[in-house]
C-alpha cells in the first residue's frame, strides 16, 4: 500500500500543479498511514531529490527520450507498471491537460475508479469518498470509489503547496517503452506569460471594453499583478482575444486566488467557470450587473477610468 503521485513536467521543469499534487498525495499518505512516492517520466532538468520537501520519500524516474513528449498510451503503460511494482493503492494526478489525457486511460487499464477534478482530500472514515466540482462549479458531488486501486485527479489551485524538510531518494525505474504512436511536430508556448490554468491571479475582461484595441490596459494590470489574462465568450468568439482565454461553462474553468472581472456582465455561463475563485473583484459601470452578486469587492465605474488608476495603485504597493 502506498500513494503514487504523477509529477508532470514541461521542458524539464516541474509544473506548479505537480507540486500541489505532491503536497496532496503526501498529506493523503499521512492520513492513510502509508508512504508517498512520485513518478517522473522523461528528462527532468531539476534535482528530483529536492521534491522530498513536498513530502514524498521516493521518486521513481523513468528516463527515455520517447517519454519527452506526451503520448498518453505510452505514459499509461509505464505508470501502470510503476504502480504495480510499488503496490500503489492510490494514484494522484494533477487534473491539468496532461492529467486529463492519462488518468482516464490508467483508470480503464487498471479498472481503478477515477475522480477527476477533486477539490479536497478524501474522506476515508467510512470508505473512500472524494469531493469534486460538478455542473461547472455550480455544485459539488461526493463520490465514492469502490475499487481496490483508486485514482484522483486534483484540480489546479484546489490544494496548497506545502513545503517542509526532506529529500527523496531517486530510483531509476526500468520500464519497457514502446515507440510512440503520437509524434509531436511542434509546440508553441507564449514565453514569460503566466498560464491561465495555473495562475493565482487572473485579470479578465468582457464586451464592455468595446474592442480589441483597448486590451492594453488589461495587459498592464495583469503585468503588475503577475497575472494571466482571460475573457468572456463573446470576446473570444469575435476574435478580440485568443480562444484559449475564454473562461466559463463552455471555456476553461479556473479557481485562482483573485479574479478581477472588467466590463463583464456576469452571465450564469460565465460565472460557472469562475465562481470558484477565492476572491472576486468586479469593475462594471452598471450597478445592476449580475456579477456584483457573485463578487467580494466591486467598483461601479467606467473601466477606462478605473483600470489605469488601479494599475497605478497596485504598482505603488508592489514597489
Amino acid at each position, binding site marked *: 500500500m502506498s500513494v503514487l503521485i504523477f509529477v508532470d513536467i514541461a521542458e524539464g521543469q516541474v*509544473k506548479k500543479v505537480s507540486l500541489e499534487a505532491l503536497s496532496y498525495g503526501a498529506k493523503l499518505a499521512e492520513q492513510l498511514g502509508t508512504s508517498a512516492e512520485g513518478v517522473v517520466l522523461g528528462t527532468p532538468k531539476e534535482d528530483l531529490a529536492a521534491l522530498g520537501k513536498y513530502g514524498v520519500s521516493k521518486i521513481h524516474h523513468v528516463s527515455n527520450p520517447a517519454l519527452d*513528449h506526451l503520448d*498518453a498510451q505510452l505514459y499509461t503503460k509505464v505508470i501502470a507498471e510503476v504502480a504495480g511494482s510499488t503496490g500503489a493503492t492510490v494514484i494522484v494526478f494533477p487534473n491539468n*491537460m496532461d492529467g*486529463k*489525457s492519462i*488518468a*482516464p*486511460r490508467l483508470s*480503464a487499464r487498471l*479498472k481503478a475508479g*477515477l*475522480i*477527476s*477534478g477533486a477539490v479536497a482530500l478524501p474522506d476515508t472514515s467510512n470508505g473512500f469518498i472524494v469531493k469534486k*466540482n*460538478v*455542473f461547472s462549479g*455550480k*455544485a459539488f458531488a*461526493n*463520490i*465514492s470509489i*469502490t475499487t481496490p486501486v483508486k485514482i484522483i485527479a486534483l484540480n489546479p489551485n484546489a490544494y496548497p503547496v506545502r513545503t517542509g524538510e526532506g529529500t527523496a531518494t531517486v530510483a531509476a525505474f526500468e520500464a519497457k517503452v514502446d515507440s510512440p504512436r*503520437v509524434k*509531436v*511536430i*511542434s*509546440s*508553441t*508556448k*507564449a514565453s514569460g*506569460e*503566466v498560464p491561465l490554468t*495555473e495562475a493565482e491571479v487572473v485579470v479578465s475582461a468582457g464586451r464592455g471594453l468595446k474592442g480589441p484595441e483597448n486590451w492594453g490596459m488589461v495587459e498592464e494590470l495583469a503585468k503588475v499583478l503577475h497575472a494571466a489574462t482571460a475573457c468572456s465568450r463573446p470576446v473570444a468568439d469575435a476574435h478580440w482575444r485568443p480562444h*484559449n482565454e475564454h473562461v466559463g*461553462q*463552455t471555456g476553461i*474553468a479556473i479557481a485562482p486566488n483573485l479574479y478581477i472581472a472588467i466590463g463583464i456582465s456576469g452571465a*450564469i*455561463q460565465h460565472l*460557472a467557470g469562475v*465562481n*470558484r475563485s*477565492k*476572491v*472576486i*473583484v468586479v469593475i462594471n459601470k452598471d450597478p445592476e450587473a449580475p456579477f456584483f*452578486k*457573485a463578487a*467580494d*469587492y*466591486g*467598483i*461601479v465605474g467606467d473601466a477606462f477610468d478605473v483600470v489605469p*488608476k*488601479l494599475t497605478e*495603485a*497596485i504598482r505603488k*504597493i508592489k514597489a
Partner: protein
Amino acid sequence: MKILVCISKTPDTTAKIAFTDNNTKFDTSGVQWIINPYDEWYALVRAIELKEKDASTIVHLVTVGGADAEPIIRKALALGGDEAFRVNADSHDSFYIASQIASIAKEGAYDLVFTGKETIDYNGSSIGGMVAELLDFPYISLASKFELNGTKATITREIEGGEETAEVDLPVVVSAAKGMAEQRIPNMRGIMAARTKPLKVSEPVAVEALTSVTSFGLPPAKAGVKLVPADNVDELVRLLHEEAKAL
C-alpha cells in the same frame, strides 16, 4: 473513413441546479436538456465538416442513455450524421459509459472516435481517454484543431500557456475543445431528414461501475459585495491587501 461521435445529454446552461432525495439526485423538474455543448459545437460539427470534404465518410453518433435521450440524439442527427446508436442505460460512472461506447466502437471498426472535452454536468473529461484505452487506440485530449491527410491526422491540443501539434496514424480517439469548429444551427432540411435516419437501440454490455455518487451539495453563497467608490481605488487595493490577503 468511419467516424463515431459521442453525444451526451446535459441540462441547459441556465438550468437551476438543485437536488432531491436527501441531496442524492439531481432535480430534473423544469430542466431543459441540450446536447452537451462540446459534443455539439466541436466534435459533431468537425465530423460533419470532414464528411462535407469527403462524401464517402460515414458519421455515426452514439449516446448512452434512456429513451429520454432520443430528442437530443435526433437534434444531433439534424445537424448531420448518417445514423445513431443509443445504448439503453443510465449511469453516471464514466467507466461504465466508456465501456458501452467502446463496445459499439469495436463492432463498427471506426477510424476516428470524437468526444467533447468534457460534459458540462459531471465535468469528468474521462470518456475519451477510457474509450481509447479500451480500444488500444492513441488519444489526443483537448484538441483545438484537427486535419486529416489520408490516414494520418494532424492534431493540435492545448497545453499550459500554448499549443502542441502532433501527427498520428488512424485510428485515434480525440476529445474536442474550442477551436475545432464553429457552432451551427440545424436547418429545416436537416430536421426533416433526421426524423427518418436510423436510430438503433441496444442493451448495455455487463460492466461493473467503479464509482458511485453518495451526495451532492451547493457551494456556500458569497457574503455580499463590498462596494468601493470609483474615485478611491487605493481603498480597494488596501482591502485586497489587508482584508482579503489576495495581493
